[in-house]
């Protein structure tokens, strides 16, 4: 201990640098403080709540997915049969392709549109709050209400949107009969509902860019587009990664809004994975296939998110 005091007391740079670190290392190795591991109990609430909210429900699903349940007392273990069935089911495959296509379109529209809105939003003054409230408004509406709004809005007879398309644009539009119209209605609804999220994230990202970056761009004679391309866009990478992940997950699991608007129809034009799943699980009460379906669904979302995340963060390095 005395040696260490000498080192500390001697003026900086005078102490022999070769011996000092070694002595310090020796000191830290002998840790005389009393050990107390009772603090681990503080983790218990988290473990319990996660168990009840995530682990136990998930295990229930796993349990269903490997059994054929006839009644609570009659069940047969069937192994991976349900997984095979679900993966080969043309209806599931159709819904899978549909959902993937929907997510792709959602991302392609909402990300650029959101960024564009963010760039166009004011930077200072009262108009900032006004713009923020206006943009955020759709996010505050409950999902099934959004569905109801669009269900009415897009109707040809009493909905303003549907009526305008039919009578002002003169295009025949009926989402209850035409599958393309139904698809477009659901897509437009999602864009309306969720682009604001992307816009807000991008706006926050834009606001965090220090002023000198824009000043430097001015000095370098960069055009507006070049400023966007080389200063704003690169600095939005982080928030856009989050936006893409959130929008992918959400759109891939979309349920409430299309359920309210089209109920998956007409035919199965807007029958996405989640709608099909709930039909199997709740409508037909096929717990086994529904369990297997859920797990595959869950797995796919996980894998795709991982891929997105890896690609987006890798490309930034």
């Amino acid at each position, binding site marked *: 201990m005395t040696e260490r005091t000498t080192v500390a007391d001697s003026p900086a740079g005078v102490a022999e640098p070769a011996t000092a670190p070694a002595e310090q290392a020796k000191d830290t190795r002998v840790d005389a403080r009393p050990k107390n591991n009772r603090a681990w109990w503080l983790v218990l609430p988290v473990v319990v709540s996660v168990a009840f909210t995530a682990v136990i429900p998930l295990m229930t699903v796993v349990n269903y997915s490997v059994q054929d349940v006839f009644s609570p007392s009659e069940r047969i273990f069937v192994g991976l049969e349900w997984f095979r069935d679900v993966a080969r089911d043309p209806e599931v495959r159709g819904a899978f392709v549909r959902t993937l296509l929907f997510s792709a379109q959602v991302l392609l529209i909402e990300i650029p549109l959101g960024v564009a809105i963010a760039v166009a939003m004011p930077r200072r003054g009262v108009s900032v709050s006004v713009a923020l409230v206006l943009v955020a408004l759709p996010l505050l509406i409950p999902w099934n209400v959004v569905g109801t709004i669009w269900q009415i809005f897009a109707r040809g007879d009493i909905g303003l949107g549907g009526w305008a398309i039919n009578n002002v644009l003169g295009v025949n539009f009926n989402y209850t009969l035409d599958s393309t119209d139904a698809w477009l209605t659901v897509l437009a609804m999602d864009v309306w509902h969720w682009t604001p999220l992307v816009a807000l994230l991008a706006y926050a990202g834009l606001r965090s860019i220090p002023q000198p970056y824009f*000043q*430097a761009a001015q*000095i*370098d004679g*960069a055009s507006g587009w*070049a400023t966007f391309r*080389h*200063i704003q866009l690169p600095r939005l990478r982080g928030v856009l990664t989050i936006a893409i992940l959130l929008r992918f997950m959400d759109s891939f699991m979309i349920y409430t809004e299309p359920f309210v608007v089209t109920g998956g129809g007409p035919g199965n034009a807007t029958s996405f994975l989640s709608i099909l799943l709930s039909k199997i699980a709740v409508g037909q009460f096929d717990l086994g296939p529904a369990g297997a379906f859920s797990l595959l669904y869950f797995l796919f979302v996980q894998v795709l998110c991982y891929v997105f995340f890896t690609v987006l963060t890798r490309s930034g390095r």
Partner: protein
Amino acid sequence: MADIRLEGVGHSYDGGRTWALKPMTWTWQSSRAYALLGPSGCGKTTLLNIISGLITPTVGRIWFGEREVTGVPTAGRNIAQVFQFPVLYEEMSVYDNLAFPLRNRKFPKKEVDQRVRQVSQLLGLDQVLRRRSRRLDPGRQQIVSLGRGLVRPQVAAVLLDEPLTVVDPALKWTLRSKLKEIHRDTGHTLIYVTHDQTEALTFADEVVVLNDGAIVQAGEPAELFLSPSHEFVGHFIGSPGMNMVPAEIAGGVVRVGAAGVGAAPDGLPPGPVRIGVRPEFVRIAGPGASPGAGATVTGIDRMGAYDLVHTRVGEHPVIVKTEAGSACEPDAAVFLHFPADRTFLFRDEVRCGSLAPLNGREPS
């Protein structure tokens, strides 16, 4: 290259209620290296941004030689500006960063390449041209930011806004000498903003001291040190700053309390003044030998190369810089002598004269 002339240029951020930069007329001579020195918030950056055109001044006109540029946007002024933090196009390679200003101005490819290589050689960036700019250390990044300014032909001036803040001390020296070297090689007008006096004094041909939105003094480093024309310059330059002691002129004699420390210069009306003298020039002497003021030693800082003797004249602290190993002890009564040619009188913070020897001769 040409002189940069400010004619009555002033700027207010709040519609004229307060001036961030008071209207001033000033000329930055071509090819000189200036340091713009002042405390935080004194208007240094505003002044710089006015020159580069990032801010249009509230009043006044700006000339680059014979060309008025008051209304000319930044891109049209050919100014290079380096900010406090490295500003890079992070996704681009060093080469593309350097080429960016030229590409924006639609230079032919061959010329872009030629100029980029020229600048990278000047700045010693040849080895890293292909590297992605964000992977460089902050010092190198700052050099790349500087290079983006220098790459354009006929740069009117290079403005540096505290460019070494993010750089660690060891590298600071290297970078500063690099800057000096570049200044020597290119002959660009250089304006270097800093609040660090060492940086300013070692770097510049001329130091411009800015306080409270106005230039208080400009001159060579030695001039600012030896002959400050404003109390602020006295405080701000030198370490420790100039001692300021309230005094009174009565009957042609400058008195601190009751003690006469010297004669007042001719034509200075009687009344209160403040005398300013640098710690380097105050002498601790015996009471009989010279005119001066009695003081009490309050403490001594032994700095190694020299000692700082803290004393108190009446209520007012006076620091004396002496050779190492000063014999003074705390609480000792000493006698301070203020040499006539190094002691100045200030009224309303502005120098109004210097102390004259008492009775026409300086007793020693």
